[in-house]
């Protein structure tokens, strides 16, 4: 395996009734002692997002985080650019703990080093396609002309040339997500976070997008953290797969590892259902 880009170290996240309240500390304590999600919730009233996740994701490849709804995938990936702060644990990117960053440094991280694509696209409805793609560049202070020029290049790469002046609500779901992808790629960050980026699309377009992703990745060699609840998608895209369940890691490894040596019954059930389909 090549060098580590992202290290997640024993990260816990609980959602208490009050952020940072005493219940949260107590919930983390219980989780450490091995209590499960349901009993912690009953005991403290805290919702458990992550219950001690450790993983190392390598540079320049696609890592998939897989799990059923509610398993904590979105929560985990939002820790990587600190849209969510952990209740306990550390997150290292390029060897330094991003939890130590000041607000200004964090902004720099988000503007230059980590970008993100969202399941619901998160496009600005009042701004046309080209300016949506240029958003990240505009935010970090590049001139409008330059930002638009770069944005046009990325629009072309995702195949949306000619739609510059349309507004998001005039596009289909697949096209909107390509705008989201172009926006994320435009800031040219090393790390790309994709939270169920293709889940809202129908199977054919989804397949298309996966192919396009793989083609792009061939050229770009980015560190991509790809979230999905679909084992097929994970196996097809991922060079490395992390399977989550109730905020805990069930198994990590290459697609072959997981296919051939399921660590437990839970993972096995995924595989069986897949071969049945």
């Amino acid at each position, binding site marked *: 395996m090549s060098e580590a880009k992202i290290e997640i170290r024993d990260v816990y996240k609980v959602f208490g009734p009050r952020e940072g309240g005493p219940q949260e500390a107590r919930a983390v304590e219980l989780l450490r002692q091995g209590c499960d999600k349901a009993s912690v919730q009953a005991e403290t009233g805290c919702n458990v997002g992550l219950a001690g996740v450790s993983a190392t994701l390598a540079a320049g490849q696609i890592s998939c985080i897989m799990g059923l709804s509610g398993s904590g995938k979105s929560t985990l990936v939002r820790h990587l650019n600190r849209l969510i702060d952990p209740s306990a644990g550390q997150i290292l990117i390029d060897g330094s703990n991003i939890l130590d960053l000041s607000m200004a440094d964090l902004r720099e991280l988000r503007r230059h080093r980590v970008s993100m694509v969202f399941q619901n696209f998160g496009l600005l409805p009042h701004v046309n396609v080209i300016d949506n793609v240029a*958003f990240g560049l505009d935010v970090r202070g590049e001139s409008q002309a330059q930002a638009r020029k770069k944005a046009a290049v990325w629009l072309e790469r995702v195949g949306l040339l000619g739609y510059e002046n349309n507004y998001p*609500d005039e596009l289909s779901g697949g096209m909107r997500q390509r705008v989201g992808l172009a926006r994320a790629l435009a800031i040219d960050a090393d790390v790309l976070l994709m939270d169920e980026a293709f889940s809202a699309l129908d199977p054919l377009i989804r397949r298309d997008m996966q192919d396009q992703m793989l083609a792009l990745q061939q050229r770009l060699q980015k560190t991509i953290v790809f979230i999905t609840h679909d084992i097929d998608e994970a196996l097809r895209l991922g060079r490395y797969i992390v399977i989550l369940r109730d905020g805990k890691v069930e198994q990590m490894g290459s697609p072959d590892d997981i296919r051939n040596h399921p660590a437990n019954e839970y993972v096995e059930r995924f595989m069986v259902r897949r071969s049945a389909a």
Partner: protein
Amino acid sequence: MGKLLRTLALASMCLAFMLPLAAKGQAAPCNAGQAVRLADLNWESASFTTHVVRRILASGYGCATEIVPGASAAIESALAQDDLQIIAEIWSGRSSIIEEAIRQGKIEVVGDTLAGGAEQGWYVPDFLVHGDAERGIEALAPDLRNWRDLPRYKSLFTDPEDPGKGRFLNCPSGWVCEATNSRLLRLHGLEEHYTNFRAGTGAALDAAINSAYDRGRPILFYYWQPAGLMAKYKFHRIEQDPFEQKCWDAIVSGDGDLCSSDFLRARLSVAVSAPFADRNPDLVAFFEKLQFEPALMNRMILEMTEARRSGEAMADRFLREHPDVWRAWLPQEVGARVAAALAPAGMPEIAGAAPAGHGIFPDWSASDLVNRQLMGMVKEYGGVFRRVSDFMLAGVLLPVERLMLAIPPWGFLLLVAALSWHATRKPVAAVLYPACLYLVGAMGLWDKLMQTFALVLASTLVSIVIGIPLGIVAARSRVLRRVLAPVLDVMQTLPSFVYLIPVLMLFGLGKVPALFATIIYAVPPLIRLTTLGLRQVDPDVVEAAQAFGVTRWQMLTKVTLPLARPSIMAGINQTTMMALAMVVVASMIGARGLGEDVLAGIQTLDVGRGLQAGVAIVILAIVIDRITQAYGRPRRQRAATSEEKPR
């Protein structure tokens, strides 16, 4: 229910039989047994006189009496139609309705209730001429005697809204004295030195004088005696030329050649409807004799204002303490009945001061405290508030108004056409809206329309400057939202008259308090809708923007504010509408414009004038409403397939 009705019917029948019985002892039943209705007059001398008359009628002549409130024009018309029988204080030559009714024989005016008549004229505070050693005030105008001295001293009375001139505080439009003073000002050529400022309402006039006197500031105004204010403060009367009946008549009526004259010493009398006078010669005889000495009247008024006694309480007090005075007005046996009816002395004599209390409630009324605090504040910080006021005037109101006046009418109409087109993209709107405004101009209300529009525009601008930032902060802070919610509720529901007078005393009469009162009423929807709009922004979009490292400012300007725009525009639209709704109220404290006409229409029963101005307000409202609403709509036609959110 049926039983109750029967009981009531029985009771009233008994009463009906008993009344004539009770009156048997007298010569004739008072007013043929019908209730005598007296007008409820709200200034002190009249209220006092009314209650003295009422008490004597009730206990001395066995009349059933009733007190009926109403605006002066309404009361006077009612008297002419015998819906009312008595107005206990009428000033000779003050009201055209009364004059007309006298000519037609519908009203009779009897008696001379104030010995020597009532003085009226132009006044300044006495300390201006003689200084006030006690308060450390120097005499600023020691030589101000005659009206001819006024131009020399105009800088003392500077009108903040028109700094080159002094301000002469006239009566509210619609009062007879307003026209009289205006003609006199013109006749004396004082108009080039003084603005003729109408107070809007009597309360506004009083408040302005009160506030100026308490702060030791100069003020030039019209006033009359006897009145509470005259008893409370020491004023100096500006001398006029000698009295000439012919000239005075011309000044009052406005007909014929004007010539200079002193004010008439008005005769105060009791006005009764003619049918009433015919029925009750004995009562008319009493009114003929009814008369107070000015000194006594002033003492009564002073006490009423100082101790905030009602006219009813003062009347009781007077009857008790001065039997020698009122016995002289009445036949022996009537006087005896009045005396017998007086409750034994020593009983609590404050009949009207404390409304019949329910035993379980302690007396926690805070009105005295508030009054004291307000007066204290006017004295202590009046200067600061005036500076704020001057700033608002010079910085916001006057520039906006000057701008409005600088645009010629056709330019303004073109501008409205262009705006309508730009906002709605409908040719009909671009023609119709200017046409509506043209109609207002054709009604002769163009200047007032511009004044009103300037006030609405200025208060909307200030509301935006205050409301949007506050809304933004409130959207973020839950604490502020919690605090703000009840405050905004109060601002919207508190009757505006409640804060109108305090605002006036602090900020002075005219446009600025009108502006503030308007803002208080108009800003809450903008704050609410800004907060609402910001909080309704799609959290997914906010999160996405966050992931790209926006600063707070960028989040606001690039994401949330643009997305909240429809809501904020709806807020601005609401604000302009509410500002327009305040136009009439604002005119009560001396703001010029369409509201002035509506108010004058009410005060003089000039229905046409009021209606016309009302229609103009509605037209202005519709035009502003349509244009601002159009700006709130999204610019682009939306595709039907906009919201498809799986989740």
